[in-house]
């Protein structure tokens, strides 16, 4: 081992990204490509009665206009990861406002966009229901989603609550939110006979291929579909599932007999690719006077649609984080005439915001420090998994200076600002998905890793290159990692914090296998200085192979493979198990109550993600997650018109996300001890979605500490603080 894993090496794809050389999905120059543009419904519920495409067809440069009358018939994929239970342009039904009703193909982008404004549509309209508040009496318990039940009972929560010495019973609410990656969703579809290539903005090329194969079952075999996505300009869950624009573009290209490129407009990204659903959460905590939890009753109500009933923002932390014998979780839903919701970065934040705010309320009820309350309710991990959450509390509190906190609300002022300190536990589930990798050592002694994983900004290229270089004993710059192509061995979707736990194992195995294969060739080759040495005695470092204890007797990857006469190609695989990562976040806010202004002035966070494979990229996930938490708490809010069920703010000047000036510098700390339960991934757990999960609650708790005002409805805008 040369010890690259664990070090904060610079990103290997850095140069490509800072020079503009990195090719994102919409950057490919495809000969003769036609441009697509979508026409969207302006009603939420009803039926198309009349659709006139004549003006659009007569517009300059227009090649075709596809509607339900002439679109290629497709098969609705059966299940997630195609969240919608329908494909647009297959019939006249309108399920939500901003649903595609026509697809224009033209020679230039401008021509397609202009023609899209010329399609005339008439509808038979039924009144929509847009808000949870307007349909709460219709809440029901949806059927299991992805094998998980929506009701879980442990002990007897109702009875325990009844007997509890202290109770906190409150409602916590959060609005619809949108992912808003900087890169819009895009598909370029190229048919060559009956094979299809998609240049796609996808967090999961393998699953995209599967969904496209399901939809095009009548036309193409899965093995003849290639999905390419070497760089992704941000996904955050929005590009995890496959959405209808991908299917429609592939269909349009088939009908138009030419490659078609579609880039969604920013406004279309508010109805086409999922969102974090609006939620209401009733939480009832029961505890002893010493602050031990005796009961949690967690009843949430989420927005669903009339076509599906998927619950994405699960109450996992209520079930798994703390030691509480009596828990009752119910995840209800209400059908509304809105687009389909889906996963959005750190989906468990929605539930966790309520739990961690309620715990802060409990800490004041029982007169305990919020950290001490959480320590008293700590639940150790079941073997073999590790859980160093108590260390996180200690590290974070120490670095923040938490011990100096005066618990009384509203007593600390600096100038005209009130200062508040709040904290919360951070935690998220991660997934582990069977993955495969292929590693080639060529005659130049260079290694090339091929794996159909993705670079979504989290550092996959960099970390996998570190793992390969370490496993082989090769310098970092002798290793090339290739990602995002279904031509490579199948690997996990980059979602659910699953990349590292799923892919590092197979890659590490491939590296070990490759090293062993090359060593075996060397020791068997009479021309090698290592000939006859027991393989176990050969050490690999910096691309050199030598005998342990005798560095003069050496060979190299290059020379061994060159003499061998052909590249050495090996594979790696191996399963891993899902789990949870943990942390604690400490936040300082400054509030000007007179003007309702809140800013986050300081954040310190400490984490247990198992082993840290790269401190830079791990820190990157922390600053990203914390900023998402700030956005969640203070500004993000998709507004749906109550009467029309239409998104009112589908732009980045009206759907606000944090800018540079909103964010403080975040200090991060890591326990950095391997988790035995994630041994294949070198002790690293999935981590990306843990940071930020506690931030909205920590901010709410800090605002309470600053002002004595308890806010339970995000975002905490001026009007709620006046």
């Amino acid at each position, binding site marked *: 081992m040369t010890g690259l894993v664990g070090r904060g090496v610079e990103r290997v794809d850095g140069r490509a990204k800072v*020079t503009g050389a990195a090719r*994102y999905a919409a950057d490919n120059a495809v000969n003769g490509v036609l441009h697509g543009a979508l026409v969207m419904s302006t009603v939420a519920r009803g039926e198309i009665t009349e659709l006139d495409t004549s003006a659009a067809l007569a517009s300059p440069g227009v090649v075709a206009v596809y509607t339900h009358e002439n679109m290629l018939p497709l098969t609705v994929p059966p299940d997630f990861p195609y969240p919608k239970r329908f494909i647009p342009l297959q019939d006249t039904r309108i399920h939500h406002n901003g649903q595609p009703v026509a697809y224009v193909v033209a020679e230039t982008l401008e021509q397609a966009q202009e023609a899209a404004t010329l399609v005339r549509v008439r509808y038979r309209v039924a009144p929509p229901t847009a808000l949870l508040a307007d349909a709460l009496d219709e809440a029901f318990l949806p059927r299991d989603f992805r094998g998980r039940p929506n009701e879980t009972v442990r002990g007897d929560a109702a009875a325990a609550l009844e007997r509890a010495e202290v109770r906190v019973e409150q409602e916590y609410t959060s609005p619809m939110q949108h992912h808003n990656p900087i890169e819009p969703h895009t598909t370029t579809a190229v048919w060559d006979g009956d094979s299809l290539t998609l240049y796609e903005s996808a967090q999961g090329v393998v699953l995209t291929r599967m969904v496209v194969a399901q939809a095009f079952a009548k036309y193409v075999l899965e093995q003849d579909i290639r999905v390419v996505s070497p760089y992704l300009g941000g996904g955050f869950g929005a590009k995890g599932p496959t959405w209808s624009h991908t299917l429609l573009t592939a269909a349009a290209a088939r009908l138009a007999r030419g490659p078609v490129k579609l880039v969604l*407009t920013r406004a279309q990204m508010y109805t086409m690719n999922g969102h974090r659903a609006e939620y209401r959460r009733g939480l009832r905590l029961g505890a002893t006077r010493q602050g031990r939890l005796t009961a949690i009753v967690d009843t949430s109500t989420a927005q669903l649609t009339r076509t599906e009933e998927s619950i994405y923002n699960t109450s996992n932390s209520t079930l798994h984080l703390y030691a509480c014998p009596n828990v009752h979780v119910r995840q209800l839903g209400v059908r509304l005439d809105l687009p389909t919701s889906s996963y959005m970065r750190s989906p468990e934040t929605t539930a966790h915001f309520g739990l961690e705010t309620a715990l802060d309320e409990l800490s004041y009820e029982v007169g305990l420090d919020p950290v001490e309350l959480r320590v008293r309710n700590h639940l150790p991990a079941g073997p073999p998994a590790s859980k160093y959450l108590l260390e996180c509390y200690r590290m974070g509190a120490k670095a923040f200076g938490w011990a100096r906190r005066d618990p009384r609300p509203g007593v600390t002022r600096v100038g005209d600002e009130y200062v508040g300190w709040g904290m919360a536990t951070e935690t998220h589930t991660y997934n582990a998905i069977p993955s495969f990798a292929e590693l080639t050592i060529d005659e130049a002694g260079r290694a090339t890793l091929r794996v159909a994983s993705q*670079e979504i900004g989290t*550092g996959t290229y960099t970390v996998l290159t570190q793992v390969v270089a370490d496993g082989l004993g090769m310098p970092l710059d002798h290793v090339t990692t290739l990602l995002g192509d279904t031509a490579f061995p199948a690997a996990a979707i980059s979602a659910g914090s699953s990349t590292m736990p799923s892919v590092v194992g197979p890659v590490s195995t491939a590296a070990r296998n490759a090293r062993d294969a090359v060593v075996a060739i060397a020791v068997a080759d009479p021309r090698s200085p290592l000939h006859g040495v027991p393989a176990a005695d050969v050490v690999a470092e910096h691309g050199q192979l030598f005998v342990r204890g005798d560095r003069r007797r050496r060979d190299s990857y290059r020379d061994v493979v060159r003499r061998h006469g052909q590249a050495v190609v090996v594979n790696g695989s191996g399963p891993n198990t899902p789990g949870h990562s943990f942390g604690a976040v400490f936040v300082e806010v400054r509030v000007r109550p007179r003007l309702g202004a809140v800013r986050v002035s300081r954040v310190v966070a400490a984490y247990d993600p198992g082993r840290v494979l790269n401190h830079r990229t791990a820190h990157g996930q922390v600053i990203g997650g914390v900023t998402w938490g700030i956005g969640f708490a203070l500004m993000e809010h998709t507004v749906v018109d109550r009467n029309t069920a239409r998104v009112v703010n589908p732009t980045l000047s009206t759907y606000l996300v*944090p800018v*540079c000036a909103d964010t403080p510098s975040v200090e991060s700390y890591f326990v950095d001890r391997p988790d035995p339960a994630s041994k294949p991934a070198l002790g690293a757990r999935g981590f990306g979605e843990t940071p930020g999960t506690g931030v909205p609650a920590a901010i709410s708790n800090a605002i309470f500490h600053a002002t004595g005002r308890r806010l339970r409805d995000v975002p905490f805008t001026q009007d709620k603080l006046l």
Partner: protein
Amino acid sequence: MTHDPVPERSAHTRRTVLKSTAVAAAGTVAAANLTSVAAAEPVRTVAGGGPVEITLSVNGQRRRVVVEPRVTLLDALRERLGLTGTKKGCDRGECGACTVLVDGERIKSCLTLAVMRQDTEITTVEGLARGERLHPVQAAFIRHDAFQCGGCTPGQIMSAVACIDEGHAGSEAEIREWMSGNLCRCAAYQNIVAAVADAAKEVRR
């Protein structure tokens, strides 16, 4: 008390940018011979709205391109000149991913028409490095891990080059305010601030 409409700082800005683009052009002489064209008279009027050939000066090269008046500078760069380093995030000036320099000043290329920029010197992210040598801002972005997915990065970098040149990189707080026209959804903001501060020191040297 009459003042020249162009602030004096702009003169300095233009000089530094032209210097770098001149070197970039010199480094790609062969390519320049293939693609550069003799200076053509700028097109001053287009009746109707049909396509017209104009000349844009991008990264030190004069390039002919056929556009309708409605084509934005961004779409001219990306879809017609093959310069896809400049990104389209929102197509309405609200994200900053399409930031380029025009005569040394930062603008959002989605909010301007290509025909309006015929007499200007345009610099995109592809024009910053001198051969293999990265611009100090590019190098600082790698050093400080000032990006994740990279979708906003070309715009951040062009904005940062201008931010430093304007003299708005004096403190962390100043950088935060003057880099707030560029959204980073991965939220690498604190690393961007560190990179800009670091690069500013180097550029001033």
